[in-house]
């Protein structure tokens, strides 16, 4: 069944269209004036202006490694993040902690820990899977580089971004 669309009956001045056009011009004109005088501001001028202060707590930026309050690297190289990582951005080479190290009882640590930021999709699976709470997604989002090598974050860079996280799991602390 066809639907009959009711068309409104136009008065003669409405049929001239000129009042309609004028009305439209007033609407666009008002927007023009408002934007021009700065009364209405929608666009943020990145990178001069940034929204960093307003990023939510759960924002998912670059993944990074953290140390605990005693400067121990939390990561024990269990490679679960490497396993879970959907784009396979993470490469870990585990190594044994030498027996003269302060934390020798932890036995294992990452010898190298590389995250290929060209591959990373910021999904946060690594953070979710980590049993040692050693990897976190920070708020850094502007990851740039001029070569592929530069886009691979190595262990040093990851700890640089990550910094220290206090509290959380403490299964390796002095008491235990």
């Amino acid at each position, binding site marked *: 069944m066809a639907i009959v669309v009711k068309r409104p009956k136009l008065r003669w001045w409405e049929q001239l269209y000129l009042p309609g056009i004028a009305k439209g011009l007033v609407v666009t004109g008002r927007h023009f004036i408002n934007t021009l005088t700065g009364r209405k501001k929608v666009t943020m001028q990145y990178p001069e202006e940034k929204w960093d202060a307003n990023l939510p707590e759960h924002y998912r930026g670059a993944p990074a490694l953290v140390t605990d309050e005693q400067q121990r690297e939390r990561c024990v190289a269990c490679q679960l993040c490497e396993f879970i990582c959907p784009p396979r951005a993470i490469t870990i080479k585990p190594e*044994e902690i030498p*027996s003269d190290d302060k934390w020798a009882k932890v036995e294992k640590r990452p010898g190298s820990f590389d995250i290929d930021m060209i591959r990373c999709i910021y999904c946060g699976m690594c953070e979710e899977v980590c049993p040692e709470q050693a990897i976190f997604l920070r708020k850094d989002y502007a990851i740039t580089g001029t070569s592929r090598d530069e886009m691979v974050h190595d262990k040093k860079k990851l700890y640089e971004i990550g910094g220290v996280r206090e509290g959380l799991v403490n*299964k390796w602390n002095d008491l235990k």
Partner: protein
Amino acid sequence: MAEQSDLIDVEIDGVWHSFPKGTRMIEACRQAGVEVPHYCYHPKLSSPGNCRMCLVQMGMPPRPRPGEDPPEPDEDGHVPISWMPRPVIACANTIAPNMGIRTTGELTETCREGVMELMLANHPLDCPICDQAGECSLQEFSVEHGKGESRFREQKVKKPKNVDVGPRIRLDDERCIMCSRCIRFMDEVADDPVLGFTDRGSHTTLAVYPGREMDSNYSLNTVDICPVGALTSNDFRFQMRVWFMKETQTIDTNCATGTNITVYSRQGQIYRITPRQNNEVNSDWMPDSHRLSFHWINDLESRLTDPLIKEDGKHKLADYSQAIAYASQRLQKYDAGEVAIVASARMTNEELYMVNKLKSQLDVRDIDVVARRGEADNYLISDDRNPNTAGVNTVLGVKDPGASLDLLKKDIASGKVKALLVLQEDLISDAGFTAEDLKQLDFLLTSYPTTNPTADAADVVLPGACWAEKSGTMINATGRLQRLNRAVDGPGQTLEPWEIIRDLIQELGGGNGIYSATDIFKQLAAEVSEFNGLTWGDIGDQGTQLIETGAELPPLLQRERARVASGEIIG
């Protein structure tokens, strides 16, 4: 149904099955398709029954009171079962007629939960650093049968960690669940009883006898049978998580025993090798010396990656097709008898078959392989350190390997042999040749996985794949035909030796329609009488008995069979 023979009827989880007399309850359940969780039980070791994980509910025919009639059997001859109120261990008890076993139900499940909880009470939660994670029975069974949470609020018992118990093994006593498999293995199989429990009680500790260490050549088998991460291999420790690795079922090529193994690799790197059960060849075990002899495969520094052609005394990099074309152009100039071949008893039957083809193509008279002899160790290692000597006898037709090498040396010196093809061998290191001997040759071609002195002297060097990089079949000392499977790719332009020989034959003018090792096996099965009727699939993962060599089984296997016969172990 069960009257006529030694078969006994047993009801497992409500279904009646028949098993031979003397079968352990746990084996009966396994054959019925029910896995009973266990830690201490191992079919190749005695059963102490100390882990209590395999507790099941058992029932027997009701015993009539005095004066009462026994219950009437039903049409199958079974009587109703009266269930016992307490569980029994399934690993050390044998089945009895009309027995009932319940592997599920409240009693069994509560028992398992309780046993799991007690085992986990003192077990450290260090799965993230534990090498066993991913293949740990404790992890698996706590998921399947555990409570999910611990009620243990006290301090866990402290025990020695990271203990050096032997040159190849590290022990973490906190992880140990006292199943005693390792103790029994060292005692019963390796005949080197150095392990034992001390401080019995809540501080039970696995320890090595004072002043001794666990240095048996079979010690690494304890790492395989350890259900948790208490014993770890120094070699594999922290190298790779087990879930990343690809498992390839193949055979060991370090001696003529042909031990069945699994190669664990990831991204073209071999990380570890473990024995694979084959009761006709190696039972569940393998020697440490063979297990750890794979590292050179990963070492790209020492590997040949590209063909080399010698020009003006210097090796130049070349393409495979270039190298083959050059070799064939040189070889065509010689008369019959001027070319000799030294093949290898490390080659597969398929490769040896292709060598035969090459031999007739070039009209070669002198052909031999390099023999490798060693000491047999009274366990698994054979005195013949070549994996395929039987194949050389059968396929290549060389009955006395290594016998004519001295004659070959003389023929080279006298100029009778002008060209030599050395396939997958290193004459200077392994066969007593010197560089001076080889200098007399007009043309020398070698194929080998690594750089070696013979290759230095060769006019054409071809990188040929090693055992982990090729597929094929081999015949072990007892005449068993077994498959070798490709686990990793060879580096650079490495080709499997049969490909090299095929290309050479083709370049010399002999056409063939061979594209894979199985193609060759088809021809082999058609032309060599011993192989008649066999197909690649017939061989299977466990191999098949092909010929009678007259050789005895390895001593370890003979002893194991005696223990099975005496009922000491299941086998």
